[in-house]
């Protein structure tokens, strides 16, 4: 791709954090931007119609019918579609909504104690109806690449863009968060599990081995092990590695080594699939 790359960016069921992470290239932006022609980006520019694009970065999955419609339209108009960030790739945090019925989600939001006209709801005729569950982009259309991370670190975004500019395939880290983690491991299985606020973890040793529910061993590397370095367990925001089918089951496997103690951990479904429920083998609570 010798000429300027015609780039589109959009936020669907995401938080715009992936866009912000791109801006977090800071001064380096001035090197990357001249190679790009940003032809569509509602967050920063006023273009109204989606044009033909070389590369389109989609942030967020689909939560309503309008999102779904846009994903199809983007696919038709773009040569390369990238599911950008964990929400787009796996559903992300909004995917925790799949633990509940969609009607229930709405009911709760519009029936809080602070609401004065309980019983009224936004009209499906005016606002786009919610989909039955949160759907990651690759479950709706084929994509050329995925870039997980909540959000992907700026270097990962830049690496992917530069690779595309140079006509190469963007590459993702293959290792796990533990490989990047500065904490030392002794290969012991914890006897009991603790919650994050309990006690004071040893600053040098593996959190999992100290009994904290770290999920770095089932999570793709790329962040530089930010959370365990800051004294809290990894929550899996880069999703699974290429080796496994399902992040939750691979984590459940590791934790099962602790036997009955692992069963006592509260809220296992939202721990092992915190960011990936919509892409999991069992992706929605059954009625």
């Amino acid at each position: 791709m010798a000429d300027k790359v015609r780039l589109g960016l959009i936020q669907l069921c995401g938080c715009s954090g992936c866009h912000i992470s791109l801006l977090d290239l800071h001064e380096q932006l001035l090197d990357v931007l001249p190679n790009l022609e940003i032809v569509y980006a509602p967050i920063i520019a006023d273009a109204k119609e989606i044009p033909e694009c070389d590369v389109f970065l989609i942030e967020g999955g689909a939560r309503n019918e309008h999102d779904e419609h846009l994903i199809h339209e983007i696919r038709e108009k773009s040569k390369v579609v990238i599911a950008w960030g964990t929400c787009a790739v796996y559903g992300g945090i909004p995917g925790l909504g799949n633990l509940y019925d969609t009607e229930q989600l709405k009911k709760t939001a519009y029936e809080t104690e602070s609401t004065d006209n309980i019983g009224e709801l936004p009209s499906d005729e005016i606002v786009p109806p919610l989909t039955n569950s949160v759907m990651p982009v690759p479950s709706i259309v084929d994509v050329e690449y995925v870039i997980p991370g909540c959000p992907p670190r700026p270097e990962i975004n830049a690496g992917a863009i530069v690779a595309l500019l140079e006509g190469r395939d963007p590459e993702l880290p293959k290792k796990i968060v533990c490989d990047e983690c500065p904490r030392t491991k002794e290969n012991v299985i914890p006897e009991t599990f603790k919650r994050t606020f309990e006690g004071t973890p040893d600053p040098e040793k593996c959190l999992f081995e100290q009994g904290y529910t770290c999920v770095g061993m089932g999570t793709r590397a790329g962040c530089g092990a930010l959370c365990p370095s800051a004294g809290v367990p990894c929550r899996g925001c880069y999703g699974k590695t290429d080796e496994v089918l399902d992040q939750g089951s691979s984590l459940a496997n590791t934790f099962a080594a602790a036997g009955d103690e692992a069963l006592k951990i509260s809220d296992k479904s939202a721990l092992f699939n915190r960011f990936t429920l919509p892409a999991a083998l069992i992706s929605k609570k059954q009625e």
Partner: protein
Amino acid sequence: MGKITIAPLTRLEGHGKVTIKLDDSGKPADVKLHITALRGFEQFVIGRPAEEVPRIVPRICGICQTAHHLASVKAVDAAWGAQIPSAAEKQRELMHLGNMIHSHALHFYYLAAPDFVLGPDADPAIRNVIGVIDAAPEVAKKAIAMRRVGQSMVEATGGKPIHPVTGIPGGLSKSMSEEKRDELLAVIDTMIQYGQDGLDLMKSLNEKYLDTINSLGVIDTWYLGLVKDGKHNFYGDTLRFVSPDGSEKMEFKPAEYLDYLGEHVVEHSYVKYPYNKKVGYPEGLYRVGPLAMINVCDSMSTPLAEEARKEFAETFGRPANQSIAYNQARLIELLSACERAKELLEDPEIVSTDVKAEVEPKAGNGVGVVYAPRGTLFHNYETDDNGIVTKANMIVATTHNVPTMEKAIQQAAEVLFKDN
């Protein structure tokens, strides 16, 4: 009757669409702002251990995620009755200021400045931040530098620049290193200088656009902001309402919010319309954010920003009702955030390792409030004996402003259509 639709609404965080219905004479009769997204956080934090919620709710907004993280952890502290060490309070406040600096710089330079620097009539294709980089590279470089310092302040205290993680019930999981403190101290004076430069730029633009500012989007509303001892405070402890003409004040603590705030479901939008409950709906609609913060406080808490506030009040009145004056108000806050960050960085407790108190999960109800860059933010959770969330309510910054944005667009449409 004609109808005009503006979609998607651009350069704002979130998903919006505007419809303007015209009457037979072509005047805008009815303006509706539709917010078209709902994710359901109030429901899906239920069932989660409360200490996990501050790691979930930042995903409400990728720009003011730190504010969500902190309001959330404050709410859990309150529900469990945790008293956090003063060093943790200061380090949390610094984390919050870093987010303010990044977000205000982003909002002014990346979102608003293209209209001012390039002019509102410039080609939409270049009227964006990239156009600013080409037309005024020195402005763009300052914007980038301020964002970078703000984000590194969040990373130094919160562990991640976007969606920080260190806030845990009882305090913080990690204290800031002396090395990071020194790095930030070394650049903070430059940031204060850039803050002043931004204000000077804004003031020079005022001269050019004052007529527009005084005519477009001018509306009377209540204002809601956060203060401490009456002074402007991003991380304050008291909420204050001020009436449209400035004559009436109401103050309340976060835990009393249900007595003062109501929310009204409307059919054309996924967001509910919050209002001042003591006044009623819709008379009690109010605005939050920089303009509201400057309008409600007695004074700014830092010296340079206080001078700027006085000047602002002379130009726009008190309270200022001009929606476009938000930009100048935002820059006063950006300067104030840099000044306050310097005070904190010079405080020895900012690297103290005494940042966490022991806590026990228990049944409780807690409210956490901070002033997010776009306005005051409320998180409220109820927990059971094991500290698992059983009920949640969140009133997030942007929603407070949706109803009044709709009013401001209606007013602006009336003015613009009269001229054409």
